């Protein structure tokens, strides 16, 4: 029995419950505290779901904000409530790890527009009592950061010791440093850029069209109509996943190996291991992610162009910044190549910022920032250690 088409599991809808009632602490902002969006509208009421790890010290100086990437969420260092998988950055965060939860207080919020408890298109629109769907306003990276600043005000944290994140998380880091320089003691943007490239916008558009081509998408009304564009979203994920790896990594991992067979089947079944792997990536992704959220968050990345807010001159975004930066890129990352990181460093130098920049040799592509990379760990540990000394943090609070 061959299976040419992607077979997705029946609805589990774990993430649908998470959208309104997440298994995380939640802060609700009422009509008195609207989120002012770049689209020119206000979002109110809205909520932010977040996780914290470690202990905030007495003078509230040891908080690290971790910003998640496109399909990440707040469960950075705990078992995921929907997938039962370990936290997405368990490798680098935890007791004794480079982002040491015995020393730092780690906060990770779900971004606005996502689907794990912070208000997004899968959340219930209070006006209609139904999911927002495409009535949800288009959001930007700056909107995400503005919402995070409101969360920190609520938590009583004036200045962050560090803002860290990779990919879309790195975009938020850069936006934080530009929008609130006094609130960011140090910044750790990894595998990111100050603007999304044409190629990356193009990849995102393919993903969005895959979602929208699925008849189950129902013009974005699938939640109301009891449908779900799982095939479309899975295809979007499969395409995107290729961009997170590298040719060398795919070749090393899969080559042209067959999956559970010795000869080709002369069909469109997943003969090759790499096909089977990609299908698995697509199928598991739709279990935990909302298709409309995928549209909104990819759009937010596409719109990101930090220099555009500063007369097209990136250096102006960081002029006279007090923040210490550590910029990191990976040699085989072709989605956010080293040249993007160099542009950040160039602008920071022109603004006389204190900046470190390391390019790490790896064949693991863009996703390297999520993986066990000893050199990445040594650099993050060293950077935070020296910033901690400058900030006057004790070894253990």
């Amino acid at each position: 029995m061959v299976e040419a088409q992607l077979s997705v599991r029946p609805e589990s809808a774990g993430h649908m419950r998470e959208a309104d009632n997440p298994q995380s602490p939640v802060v609700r902002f009422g009509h008195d505290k609207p989120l002012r969006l770049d689209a020119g509208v206000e979002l109110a009421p809205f909520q932010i779901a977040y996780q914290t790890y470690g202990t905030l010290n007495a003078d509230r100086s040891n908080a690290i904000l971790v910003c998640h990437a496109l399909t990440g969420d707040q469960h950075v260092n705990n078992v995921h409530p929907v997938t039962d998988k370990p936290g997405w950055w368990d490798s680098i965060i935890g007791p004794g790890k480079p982002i040491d939860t015995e020393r730092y207080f780690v906060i990770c919020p779900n971004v606005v527009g996502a689907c794990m408890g912070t208000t997004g298109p899968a959340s219930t629109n209070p006006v209609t009592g139904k999911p927002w769907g495409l009535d949800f306003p288009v959001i930007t990276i700056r909107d995400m950061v503005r919402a995070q600043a409101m969360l920190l005000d609520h938590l009583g944290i004036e200045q962050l010791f560090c803002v860290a994140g990779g990919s879309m998380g790195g975009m938020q880091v850069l936006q934080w440093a530009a929008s609130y320089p006094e609130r960011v003691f140090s910044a750790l943007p990894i595998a990111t850029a100050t603007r999304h490239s044409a190629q990356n916008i193009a990849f995102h558009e393919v993903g969005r069209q895959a979602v929208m081509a699925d008849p189950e998408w129902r013009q974005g009304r699938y939640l109301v109509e009891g449908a779900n564009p799982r095939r479309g979203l899975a295809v979007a994920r499969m395409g995107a996943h290729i961009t997170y790896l590298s040719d060398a990594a795919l070749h090393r991992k899969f080559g042209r190996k067959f999956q559970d067979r010795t000869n080709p089947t002369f069909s469109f079944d997943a003969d090759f291991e790499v096909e089977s792997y990609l299908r698995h990536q697509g199928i598991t992704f739709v279990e935990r992610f909302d298709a409309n959220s995928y549209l909104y968050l990819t759009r937010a990345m596409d719109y990101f162009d930090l220099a555009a807010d500063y007369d097209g001159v990136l250096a102006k975004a960081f002029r006279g910044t007090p923040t210490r930066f550590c910029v990191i890129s990976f040699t085989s990352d072709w989605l956010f190549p080293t040249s993007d990181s160099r542009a950040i460093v160039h602008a920071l130098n022109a603004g006389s910022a204190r900046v470190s920049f390391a390019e790490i040799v790896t064949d693991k592509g863009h996703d390297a920032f999520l993986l066990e990379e000893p050199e990445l760990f040594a650099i993050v540990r060293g950077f935070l250690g020296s910033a901690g000394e400058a900030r006057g943090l004790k070894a253990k609070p």
Partner: protein
Amino acid sequence: MMLLRPKRDLTMAEAARAPGGARVDHLLVSAMVEPKSRVLDVGCGDGELLKLLEQRGVDGRGIELSREGVNECVAKGLAVIQGDADTDLVDYPDDAFDYVILSQTLQATRRPREVLENMLRIGRRAIVSFPNFGHWRIRLQLLLNGAMPVTDNLPDSWYDSPNIHFCTIKDFREMCEVAGVKMEKSVALNPWGAPLRLNAPWWFWNLFGEQAVFLLSRKR
């Protein structure tokens, strides 16, 4: 003062070390830097000099060509980026630093004069140290062997060497003259890292100084 001659380090050559472990030329350079000032170390290697400067309260930044050197520095918490002295200094704004240091790197640049001019544009002062190709042992090797000298301090064969622009103390003085650069302080060191007599004439330094350190500024 007893001086040791340890193994080769990352930057280039065997260097004399003071009893505390610091390189003598690094101590000389750091003594020329005012406390609390802003410093850019061009070609900072594994960050040894930057670390020494930071311990003295200096706000130090570094540029290093080799990725290994950069990543080692960043892991030490130093503000270092990957870059090339020949091409990347132009990106820095004027007067961004109090001092720009070029420690044992001048001879490895493609355009030493442009590098020096850029250093004195982005910094109010420059500190340059380099191995003196006019040292008598080098002259003697060339005279007797008729081949490019290989010494403890300059261990690479001519075809392996990153050092493409060797100069003597005399050569360097002449370039400073032409480029409108003022020499504020000069020190020459013998092979054991001890400074030569201050009142010695320049030809004596050029013959017996194995390396030299200069504090430079722009002529008015």
